[in-house]
């Protein structure tokens, strides 16, 4: 029974830890499928988290925080779009710039506005997204296996968690079953064909960048107002890059992206749990190894040992109409 509870707890924190990865990963999916590489997921998420923390602290409402996060994150996304779509700048350089601007600005503004060393004030519970108990938890609690799984694992998360997981089938549907999705994928593979069909390549790519901004904002809001209670300096701590790794791992497909994020979230949850608890056969695994494992796995994937990851064909290339 003790191991069962432990497993359940690790799985529960797996879900909570993989949500920001999943949101950022889906954000990157929209952008990269449209041919806009986005290294700036990290920065947008960080800026979103700061905006959510600050706005929720001022207004006392988690939803206003969420709105602020989305607005800021989309604004940064538009900067990325302006540089890489309108001015045909290097997409990687632009993304790197956004990461630095977000990392610096959040700390400087946080210190100037709240005087707490770059953090935003601790949020009371009604200014956060709180866990929701799904219907039937009480009735099912007596049932042996399903009961604990339902109440621990499935019920009792904030609304953003459910939103993140619902976004997976939604993204699949948008990408593969709508006209917008078809065009989005086409513009990432062969923008000239889209242009020939009389559809504006820049506008389509701008829409993809906006989608990406919205989701990064939600991811940031989740960090600051659902998982934590306020913004902390460098809160994202490389999650944007892990999301990027997950995106490659999933080969730019939504459902696989969910599994990749769950895997990386599990590694994180396991690393936290593993500290001070040596495993039965292997002994204690160094925390650093667990932290580096998502990257190592992605490198192994890229090296061609687990299938082959082929990015969208027109990714990273600005579209020039005349050619």
């Amino acid at each position, binding site marked *: 029974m003790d191991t069962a509870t432990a497993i359940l707890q690790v799985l529960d924190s797996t879900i909570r830890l993989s949500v920001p990865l999943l949101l950022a990963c889906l954000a990157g999916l929209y952008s990269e499928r449209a041919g806009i590489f986005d290294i700036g997921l990290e920065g947008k998420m960080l800026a979103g988290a700061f905006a959510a923390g600050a706005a929720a602290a001022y207004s006392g409402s988690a939803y206003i925080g969420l709105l602020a996060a989305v607005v800021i994150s989309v604004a940064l996304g538009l900067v990325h779009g302006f540089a890489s779509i309108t001015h045909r700048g290097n997409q990687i350089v*632009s993304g790197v710039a956004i990461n630095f601007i977000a990392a610096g600005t959040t700390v400087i503004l946080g210190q100037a506005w709240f005087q707490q060393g770059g953090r935003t004030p601790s949020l009371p519970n009604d200014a956060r997204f709180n866990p929701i108990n799904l219907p039937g938890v009480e009735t099912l609690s007596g049932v042996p296996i399903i009961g604990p799984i339902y109440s621990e694992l499935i019920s009792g998360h904030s609304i953003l968690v459910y939103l993140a997981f619902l976004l997976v089938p939604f993204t699949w549907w948008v990408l593969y079953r709508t006209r917008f999705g078809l065009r989005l994928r086409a513009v990432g593979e062969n923008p000239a064909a889209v242009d020939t069909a009389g559809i504006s390549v820049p506008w389509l790519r701008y829409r993809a960048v906006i989608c990406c901004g919205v989701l990064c904002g939600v991811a940031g809001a989740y960090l600051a107002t659902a998982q934590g209670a306020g913004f902390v300096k460098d809160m994202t701590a490389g999650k944007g890059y892990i999301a990027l790794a997950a995106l490659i791992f999933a080969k730019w497909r939504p459902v696989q992206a969910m599994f990749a994020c769950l895997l990386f979230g599990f590694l994180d949850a396991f690393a936290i749990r593993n500290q001070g608890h040596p495993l039965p056969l292997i002994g204690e695994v160094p925390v650093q190894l667990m932290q580096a494992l998502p990257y190592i796995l992605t490198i192994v994937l890229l090296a061609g040992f687990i299938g082959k990851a082929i990015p969208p064909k027109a990714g990273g290339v600005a579209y020039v109409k005349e050619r």
Partner: protein
Amino acid sequence: MSQPFAKLPAWADYGLLPLINLIVAFFVAGLVVLLVGESPLDAAVLMVKGAFGSGDGVGYTLYYATNFIFTGLCVAVAFHCGLFNIGGEGQAYIGGLGVALVGLGLGGVLPWWINFPLAIIASAVVGGLWALIPAWLQAKRGSHVVITTIMFNFIAASIMVYLLVGYLKAGGTQAPETRVFGEGGQLPGLGWLLGLVGLNMRSAPLNVSFLLALVSAFLVWVLIWRTKLGYEIRTMGYSPKAARYAGIKEVRIIVITMMISGALAGMMALNPIMGAQHRVQLDFVAGAGFVGIAVALMGRSHPAGIVLAAILFGMLYQGGAEIAFDMPNISRDMIVIIQGLVILFAGALEHMFRPTLLRILQRLARVKHQPTPAVATEGGQ
């Protein structure tokens, strides 16, 4: 709007346009200073005073600049090959292992002038090897070098934390750092050099690796513009198709370029470790690898430009530390914003002002030639 960019005269392309981009970046940074309720002008005055106002200020400025020259060169060499090595941070961090090997092993045995060249080789080799796998993946598998080098940054950080809290940690302390190197693992300072121009450096850690940085900059210039390898690197960066057609081996050039790039980043570790702290500390790179991106973009990947840009960023680092005393709302993180803005305006948006500038220059040229339009058109043939 979508016509290809017309060519600007060279002085505008290499002088005016970067200057405009830089001014815009600093203007926006000034807005941020304004937003936190301080005066940008006062901040700028404080910064310049802090960076150049005293012998120690200059010493610190050049000490930081040393780091940025190495990382800037690292990014620039890769740029010339059309590669974006974002992994300077990790390559420098791991390069510290090479320095540690020499410093810990031979620091108490050999004098510094023998250890220095050994440490240069060790750090360059380790840094270069750290760039090998991303290079190989790019060359053989087409995996984007940006993605792989980012991941290698994180892996490098994990390895270094693991080693510094474990094997490499000095006995008897809690701090995750190695023991202090022996006498022979410590580089002499450059107080005499500043003394030549009448400055008195007391505690600043400026050391001989600054001279090494300048030599490296010169060697990179020789490599890129005066050797066959450099020509191949530039051909590859300019047009991979042309390079392939000319019989240049793609895999070989990518791997060599990335390893040179990684070696330059690795050598950065000499400055803080052997030159200043005389031991390996946690996170001693402190973002210098990323500053290198801004430095390389600002210096337009030319060693001379990189040295100037590195000194400018050294000034920002040193001056920024001084500002924090008088303006508590402005911390070192201000530099991170400026860095980001420079990367944005000098890098991603470098073409933003080009059409406008072109139009203005053309109009000026037309005004000049107005009296004799027929001659002007003929002269243009």
